[in-house]
């Protein structure tokens, strides 16, 4: 029997048990990779912003390209009003991207493959966007649920559907990222297990499959981070520019 492909998602304590009241906030492998991702982002971008030369070196170019990439993404989807939220969306995109990418290294832990992490991020975005919407438009923000140009007869139904779709945003946002990461890693683990169980004779096929999947997963890791960030931008756009 090959290894259980879900073992990789196990969270375990590193070091002593830390408790605040009855809450266990011990440092775990998940915490470790959150810290590692955060440090990696901070180190890379700190190096990339340290000195400004007319001809940027590689790391500066990386930092500046990321900056313009996210900045363009925000201005394209949410317009110029979203500028104050640039830093948040940039951090969000980088955090998710680095967590996903660190998960691609063998024997590491993928932070974003845990529903609780993605759900907390999505819930924070959902609550934040809703608060921003109400601050900007007052109760006029509720017009979001009443699309214009809809026949009066259909209106009650549409409003209900809109409210449900709005409330399901954090769930769809978090589950999308979590499920993608979990499915990809599980699949790679399963194929990795096949390599072992089929041995030197038949193991080459799942091995090549595993290699191809690694490429695909790296793409997915980037894409999911991008989707997460761009959906945040779209939600933000709804809150900032009420166009219904």
């Amino acid at each position, binding site marked *: 029997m090959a290894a*259980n492909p879900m073992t990789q998602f196990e969270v375990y304590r590193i070091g002593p048990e830390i408790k605040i009241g009855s809450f266990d906030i011990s440092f775990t492998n998940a915490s470790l990779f959150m810290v590692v991702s955060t440090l990696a982002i901070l180190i890379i971008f700190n190096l990339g912003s340290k000195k400004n030369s007319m001809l940027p070196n590689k790391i500066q170019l990386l930092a500046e390209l990321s900056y313009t990439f996210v900045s363009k993404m925000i201005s394209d989807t949410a317009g110029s009003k979203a500028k104050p939220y640039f830093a948040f969306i940039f951090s969000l995109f980088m955090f998710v991207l680095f967590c996903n990418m660190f998960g691609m290294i063998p024997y590491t832990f993928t932070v974003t493959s845990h529903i609780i992490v993605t759900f907390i991020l999505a819930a924070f975005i959902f609550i934040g966007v809703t608060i921003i919407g109400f601050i900007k438009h007052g109760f006029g923000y509720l017009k979001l649920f009443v699309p214009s140009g809809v026949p009066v007869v259909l209106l009650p139904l549409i409003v209900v559907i809109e409210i449900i779709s709005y409330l399901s945003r954090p769930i769809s946002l978090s589950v999308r990222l979590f499920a993608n990461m979990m499915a990809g890693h599980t699949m790679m683990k399963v194929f990795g297990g096949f390599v072992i169980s089929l041995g030197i004779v038949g193991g080459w096929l799942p091995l090549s499959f595993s290699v191809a999947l690694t490429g695909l997963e790296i793409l997915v890791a980037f894409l999911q981070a991008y989707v997460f960030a761009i959906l945040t931008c779209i939600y933000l756009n709804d809150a900032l520019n009420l166009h219904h």
Partner: protein
Amino acid sequence: MIKKYFFQLIFFNLFISREVFAAESGGMPQLNPEFWISQIFWLTLTFGILYVVLSKLILPKISANLELRKSQIQENIEAAEKQRKDSESKLKEYEEIIIKSKSEAKDIFKETREKTIKDINLKREVLEKQIDEEINKAEKEINELKKTAPEKINQIAIETSSEILKNLMGTEINNSSISAIVKDLSKKNGDKFYGN
């Protein structure tokens, strides 16, 4: 603990199996709430730190760098544009100067030619006048000579003939008779001798 975990991973759980989690959470460790609070805490902490450091320290720097580069590039483009315009105007100026100097050279050439021609003409006229004068003078002299020549010849003829006669005859002969004869002869044959 870590050592054990890595050991398990390396050997793909072939030799040691771990059966703790599976029974509890139906195979999905994600749904095991044991470390949820811990994950939420650490996520908030790390993401919070990340957000604060990025937004307060790093992103403004990157933004400033980009702005600076953009403005510098803009400046350089403007300077290049200005220099291009300058060089174009200089080229125009240069061409104008060339055209001007060419026409000037032509003018100078023309002027000099005219002047020289005038000079030559003037000198020629003067020379011609001088030549004419000389010729006239010479002609006058010749005419005078022509006028005076027969008389002188007659005189000489008279003197010579009287001398000859004196030597021949040994006596003085009256000059007037000889001159009469010479005059007579010269009147008869004058045209023959002097060709006029």
